[in-house]
Structure formats: C-alpha cells, structure tokens
C-alpha cells in the first residue's frame, strides 16, 4: 500500500526578500519535492495556534535531487508576515503538493506564452524550466506584469526565452498590463497560454483568448479551508455542470487551480 499523505515538516534552507514585501523561501521537504509539478501549490501552516487554516502558496521551483521546493510570496496578512520571519534551519509545516498544475503535455510542439501578473509570476518560473528541459514546446515567451521597475524573477525567466515585461508605472518595459503587451504582439494559432495573476488580469486574458481563439489555461485563486477538495470552500463557477459537484462548481484546490479558460466563469 502506498504511504498515506500527511502534514509534513519542512526545514527552511534559506529565505531572502527579493522585492519590497516579497520573499523567496527555499524549503527542504523531499517527500513533497518528489511529487511536485509546476502550477501546483503547497499549503503552509502557521506556528501560532490561533491561526488554523493553511496558506496556499504556489510552487515556484522544484529541485527533486536536493529535495527542495521554492516558494515566492508577498506579505499580505498575519500568516505570510510570520513566514517572512523564518530563518535557515527553522521548521514549517505544510501539506502538498496540491492541485493539478499546468498541463505541460498540451504544450507539445507549440509556442508557449507564460503570462504572469505580480505575485502570479512565481509559479510560471518552474513551468518555464520544465518546459524548456523537456524540450516539449517550440518556444517560450514570458509576459510579466509588475507594479514598477523591480522586475523580481524576470532575469531568471530569460534563461528560457524572451521576456516581455509590463509595468503599471511604465518604469520598465511596456507601460500598462500584460494585456497591453499581448495586444501589441498577438500570439499566433500555434500558441498556448499559461497564466497566473489577479482575477481582473485573468478575466481580461480569458476574453482576449476567446477573441483570438487561443488555447489558454488560467491558474485561479480562492479562499480555502481543507485544500484537498473535501470542504467545498474554494469553488469557482464553471461553464458546464462538472462531474464531481453535479452543479457548475469546480474546486480550485482539487480540480484546479489551473483551468482551461473557456471552462470557468470569472
């Protein structure tokens, strides 16, 4: 019988602040690293007993040999603030990997466009790396949206193909959003889009992909409790009745977080 999954204790390898309020955390947790795929997430627990629910954080890097996972997150409340205080050697509990991840096989022979906005950028990094290593796709272009000229992680994407940044304040790359970049250099029919970012960006991208008739996959975010598909907290509206719920509600944590753009209602 396969070993049961369980709450794991990871050791902090290192952590650094890579932009204001944005932290890059490397965890040694071989059981999780062995199973992880790009686009999946881990659910991190707080040490403070008054905060029960885990915090979902996307997997930004996987080193199966070293048994490490890389997570990049923004401080946005008490839990992430506490994580940011973790030092090398300290422990943090988690469950994972969770969710489906990006369907890398769908990229076979295609031009891949990775579209990331803000704190949605990190999971695309491991996606780029694995696509590139497997040689499955013909080309990788990363369209990355930032607030300002602190283009965290952008340099790492350059190893895998062209990087087209956009900044809200126009301080680097295209002034505006990732959509402004895409509208300038429209992906051709051979393309596939993998995206992660804030809902307004995903919604705009969904419309864009529909208009251009492009294959597009979106990674969604929703408030979660169990993280594994049992509690039905984290649903998103779907276009069709899905088989699990028998209503038009898919679970972001289990059926997602990555969905085909045309399958979800944002």
């Amino acid at each position, binding site marked *: 019988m396969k070993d049961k999954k369980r*709450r794991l204790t990871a050791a902090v390898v290192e952590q650094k602040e890579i932009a204001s309020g944005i932290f890059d955390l490397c965890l040694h947790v071989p059981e999780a690293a062995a199973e992880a795929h790009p686009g999946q997430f881990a659910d991190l627990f707080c040490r403070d007993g008054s905060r029960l629910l885990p915090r979902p954080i996307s997997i930004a890097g996987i080193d199966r040999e070293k048994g490490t996972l890389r997570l990049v997150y923004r401080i946005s409340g008490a839990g992430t603030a506490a994580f940011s205080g973790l030092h090398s050697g300290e422990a943090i509990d988690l469950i994972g990997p969770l969710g489906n991840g990006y369907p890398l096989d769908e990229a076979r022979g295609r031009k891949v466009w990775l579209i990331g906005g803000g704190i949605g950028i990190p999971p695309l990094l491991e996606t780029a790396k694995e696509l590139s290593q497997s040689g499955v796709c013909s080309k990788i272009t990363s369209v990355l949206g930032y607030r300002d000229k602190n283009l965290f992680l952008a340099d790492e994407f350059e190893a895998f193909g062209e990087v087209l940044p956009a900044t809200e304040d126009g301080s680097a790359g295209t002034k505006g959003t990732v959509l402004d970049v895409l509208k300038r250099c429209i992906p051709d029919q051979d393309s596939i889009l993998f995206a992660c970012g804030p809902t307004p960006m995903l919604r705009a991208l969904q419309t864009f992909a529909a208009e251009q008739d492009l294959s597009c996959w979106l990674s969604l975010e929703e408030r979660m409790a169990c993280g594994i598909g049992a509690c039905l907290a984290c649903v998103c509206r779907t276009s069709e009745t899905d088989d699990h719920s028998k209503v038009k509600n898919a679970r972001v944590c289990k059926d997602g977080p990555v969905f085909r753009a045309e399958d979800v209602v944002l």
Partner: protein
Amino acid sequence: MNKDILSINIAGVEFRNPVMTASGTFGSGMEYSEYIDLNALGAVVTKGVADVPWEGNAVPRVAETPSGMLNAIGLQNPGIDTFIERDIPFLKQFDTKIIVNVCGHTEEEYLRVVERLKDQPVDMLEINISCPNVREGGISFGQDPHGVESITRKIKETASQPVIMKLSPNVTDITEIARAAEAGGADALSLINTITGMKIDVRTRRFLLANRTGGLSGPAIHPVAVRMVWQCAQAVRIPIIGMGGVQSAEDALELMLAGASAVAVGTALFADPAVPLKIVKGMEAYAEEQGLVNISEITGAVKER
C-alpha cells in the same frame, strides 16, 4: 491492550471507536482517504445531502477567525442520486460505519432523502436541522421545539436506520430543543453545529463572506460545545455525539466526560488530516492510564470539584 477498550454502541450500532468526522468537513471521505485510513475511524459522517443537487453560496465561503473559522458553504451537494451511486459504494469499501447527514429546505425534502436511503447500506442518519447558512429552511426547524419534534417524528416514521438529530447552538435553551427531539423519537443527538458569526474587512468595508454571515467552528467554540453537551446530557436519556472544536484527545475526552458517547472532528482536520487518528491513540492511552475497561465509562462522568 484490550482490543475493545474504545468500542462503543449508539442506538444499537457498534462503532470501533468513538471518533467520527464532522459532517461537511470530510466530504464522503474520498479526498481524506489519501491521508488517513478510513478503517481506523469510528464512523464517517458525510457532507449533508439533499434530494437534488444544491449549488451552495457564492464565494468567498470561508474566513479565518481567532482559533476558528467561519463557513458559509451553503450545503452545496450533488444530490441523493449521485450520492447513492458514487459515495455509498466508495464508503462500503471500508470497514467503518457510515452516517449520512441529510439536509433540506422543507420537511418534504428531508423526507425524500430519508426515503431514498431506506434500503441503502448506511448505518445511521444525521439530520441537519441547524445549518445557519440556508435561508429558506434549516435554521427555523432547528430553533423551534415544536418544529423539531414534528420533523423528528416524521423522519422516524420514514427512516429504516436509527436517526440522529443535529442541533443548532444558536438557541436560548438547548435542552428544550434536545427534549423535543427526544420526544419526537430521535435515537441520538449530535451537537453542536456552528455558531453564527460574521467578519468584515475594514479596509474594503465589505463582508468577508459573500453570504455575510457564516458558521463559527473550531477550537474557539469548544467550551460552548462542552457546556451544551453537558446540559443536554442532564436533560435527555438518548446518547449524544459531541462536536465543536475538537483538536486533541483531551478535547474529545472533555466532551465525553460532559456526556457524549462519541465525538466528531471537523475543522481540526484542516490543520492536520491525521488528527482523528491521533485522538484515537490519545484515547487509548487515557483509557489505559485511567484503568478503564471501556471508554464509555467516562461518558457523563464529570465530577464536582
């Protein structure tokens, strides 16, 4: 160790141990079966099921609170047909008891589900007359003793399995409701369901839950659960399944000392899926340490100081 030290009996049903899952936190066990051996549980209590699929509420459906959480899932469920086709066969693969939680907007809806379950291989029914997140029915049944007695009686007339009535804590006098359920013929009681609460995001000035209010669960409500189990244990003779904030063997034992015959674990699963099994182990250790022949000896055994 005495193999049967934890075995208990509620309304004629034999349970391996008194540790169950709380309805709605465990689905029908499929997802958690990757994390824990369902055979090690006293029972799986399933998510509430209605006569037809329910969509539930809009998201966000959950919010974290100090030592607890609010949920307003709104009883999303795939309906009794899918449940019978998919969930019961799944659970029958395991050697654990199956308690099906039933919900509805009206008496008729409850009865339709109970009717459909009549010839199904499930061990008990748990009737949720207390879900605070359904506006039409739900809460009104659970807060009015006459309504509770009447619906209990009708369900008992229809059901082929023993019936557990699950009570709402959002009442002035829980013993009045408990007595009404007993008078209606309930075989057992489950308590407590969630306490209605609310959270507001002060930056956006908006309700955190789409449904505005939600049900408070988790360790925060444990003292209220202990109190209500104790009050009901003084008021009725039928067995009680206690729940509300159980996250350790101690919490479970507290509910039993207050008068529960078994306990269910809900919210604590989200913090650690292995909690129910840890509780089983902790109970075993306690039973031996205290020299019990069977764990049921502590049910209601709290003493004055």
